[in-house]
């Protein structure tokens, strides 16, 4: 592995960390699309910064672009506050307009420089090591490494300093305001960090990958845990892992690093989406099915209790009476038999004592809606699942 390769991987990992932290809060605050908006609307800031400084590597570019990012957020909020359109429409109006201004500025004025829209939107990590930071004639590493590195350090310092404030204001704005933290300051602080991260990162990896690195790891973490600290850690780790795998996939396919990192993120997200223990698709569908069967069982037993006459309780008539398909009634019958809730005597079904007691409790719960009943019911339901 050459030192350039090492540097690329290091930059990729740092970008992943820098994105995952604000990304987690954006996802929790239901503001994920703001990262997409910022990543596009900083273009005019970059272009104007370039016209003013004539230098693509000037720190003023980053600063101006970050300011444009915050302006985007302010504009979106202003438009939303007028009540003329909803928040998502406000986002959808602001960033294409700003992006268009950026594209037109570039097309009109910057023909002879290598500031083109493709590079800005797509980025190329492979070129990052060629742009060195030289202090007093000594090469001290790739410039992106230092830019991203300092962003990571600042983000981490802010995260540790304001963790409590961030946590409270994310989950309970009112409480945060009562406790005396200004949610507004936290909000704009977060937006500024997201803006600076986007600007710092997209030079290396492109706008779209910034969005992917902000949202996808946080979304995965959200499906895996309910704890904010764990969520942050999982987001950072999955971001770093996909950055590394993505780099090597790109290396073997000889393809775009940003593209393959995103693709790896996509595959990882798909896996988590399908197989996450309690929030994944499979377990959700499974749980919904089971709850459905439980509700059917309850309806079935209530029906049995309501009818003393034998004709109503004949096994062949049940399907007709409660309108179930054959499969369904069989599942429910088997479940009830297994739990000793019913007995079948000469094709006539009757409730056992246990079934009777259970049904009474259920009626009790349905009619009085008292929580005591449901607590006990829950335990009984767990019996079914065994």
């Amino acid at each position, binding site marked *: 592995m050459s030192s350039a390769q090492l540097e690329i991987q290091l930059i990729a990992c740092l970008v992943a960390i820098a994105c995952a932290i604000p990304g987690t809060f954006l*996802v929790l605050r*239901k*503001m*994920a*699309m703001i*990262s*997409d908006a910022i990543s*596009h609307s900083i273009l005019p800031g970059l272009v104007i910064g370039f016209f003013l400084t004539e230098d693509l590597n000037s720190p003023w570019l980053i600063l101006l672009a970050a300011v444009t990012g915050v302006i985007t957020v302010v504009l979106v909020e202003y*438009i939303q506050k*007028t009540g*003329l*359109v*909803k928040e*998502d*429409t406000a*986002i*959808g*109006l602001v960033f*294409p*307009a700003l*992006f*268009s*201004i950026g*594209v*037109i500025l570039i*097309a*009109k004025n910057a*023909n002879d420089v290598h500031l083109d829209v*493709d590079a800005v*939107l*797509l980025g190329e990590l492979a070129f990052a090591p060629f742009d060195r930071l030289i202090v007093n004639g000594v090469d001290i590493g790739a410039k992106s490494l230092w830019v991203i590195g300092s962003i990571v350090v600042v983000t981490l310092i802010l995260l540790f300093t304001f963790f409590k404030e961030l946590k409270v204001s994310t989950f309970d704005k009112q409480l945060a305001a009562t406790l005396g933290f200004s949610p507004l300051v936290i909000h704009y602080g977060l937006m500024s960090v997201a803006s600076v991260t986007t600007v710092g990162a997209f030079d290396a990896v492109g706008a*779209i*990958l910034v*969005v*992917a690195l*902000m*949202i*996808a790891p*946080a*979304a995965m973490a*959200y*499906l895996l845990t309910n704890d904010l600290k764990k969520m942050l850690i999982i987001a950072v780790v999955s971001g770093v892992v996909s950055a590394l795998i993505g780099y090597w996939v790109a290396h073997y*396919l000889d*393809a*775009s690093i*940003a*593209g*393959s*990192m*995103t*693709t790896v*993120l*996509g595959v990882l*997200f798909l896996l988590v*989406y399908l197989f996450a223990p309690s*929030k*994944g*698709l499979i377990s*959700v*569908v499974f749980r919904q099915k089971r709850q459905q069967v439980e509700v059917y069982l309850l309806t079935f037993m209530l029906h049995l209790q309501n009818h003393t006459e034998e004709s109503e309780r004949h096994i062949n008539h049940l399907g007709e009476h409660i309108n179930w398909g054959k499969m369904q009634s069989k599942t429910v019958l088997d479940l009830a038999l297994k739990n000793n809730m019913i007995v079948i005597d000469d094709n006539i079904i009757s409730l056992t004592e246990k079934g009777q007691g259970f049904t009474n409790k259920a009626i009790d719960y349905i009619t009085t809606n008292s929580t005591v009943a449901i607590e006990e019911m829950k335990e009984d339901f767990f019996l079914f699942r065994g």
Partner: protein
Amino acid sequence: MNITEYFNLLFTDYTLQTITLGTAVLGALCGMLGSFAVLRKQSLLGDAISHAALPGIALAFLITGAKDSNTLLLGALVSGLVGTFWIRGIVKKTHLKTDTALGLILSLFFGFGMLLLTFIQKMPNANQAGLDKYLFGQAATLVASDVWTMCIIAGLSLLILLVFWKEFKLLLFDADYTKSLGFNVKFLDVLITFFIVISIVVGLQTVGVVLMSAMLLAPAAAARQWTNSLSVMVVLAAIFGAFSGVFGTAISASSNNLSTGPVIVLIAAVFVLFSFVFSPKRGLLFREIRYRNNRKDLELNKTLAFMYQIVESHDNIDHPHAIKILNNFHGFTRKSLQKLEDRELITVTKTMWSLTEKGFTTAANLYNQLEENE
């Protein structure tokens, strides 16, 4: 070439005619369907779908090896639809919110598309040049067959809208009620989403991935400000969209180095800005004027209520009082007294004022209301 020359050329130049017609039809189509996207709170769906279409375009090219725009659009349509339904799946089955789902699909699909594009760029087949026009859009590459495709799709969606108009309208404003009436809500939902996806896909070639969402939203958001009626809104949005297309093409054609997509989007943004400020009922300008008038009326009423208190202790309503005694109360000016006089609520003679009959009853009612509210 300036704008007038452009419009002169428009009648003779075939290419210009094609492009202008194309952007106009696209604008109208997007405005029409965008109204539904905006009202259904699916504004950012356009952004997500236009990004999600990229891998479809790349895959279609990889499979067929041809750059036929209809094949590529078909690929875009398929991957756009896959993206849309995955977004629905995420929102319905997991705890993730809509915005996260949109951002996920948008960035992940687009990233995968980029991977495929770099793959294609390395293929020996030199035919791949021009695939990136879908990223930023190039109205200049529109040919007659593309415009035909757009016209057919616009016609189809118009037909569908007309046939299912009542159902769509009901679905927009009360989905549960629609369901309880026995309409197939799922079918309607899929139908309208399907057409929104199609309109996004046909627009990709003209304005590009990033700006497509604005094409969908801006005309609709502008139209929304002028009316509360769905049919008027849809028609207005289609008109705004078509105008943005035509003007955008005209401006970009009459100047060097101006790509059409961004100009169209900026024109649409100007429509939005104008509507936000100047629409009579919802616009910010008239709203501000209404607020000011209300505030002034409130001031006048305060003065009037104060006068009433003074007059109440006299038998004679039009007993004159010195303006000076109002001095401890700061709610009046020479102008506001003049206004009260204009409304025939008081009469002012030199330094004295007195309430008229009308002023007295008005003030009495005002006062009663105040007391009731307390």
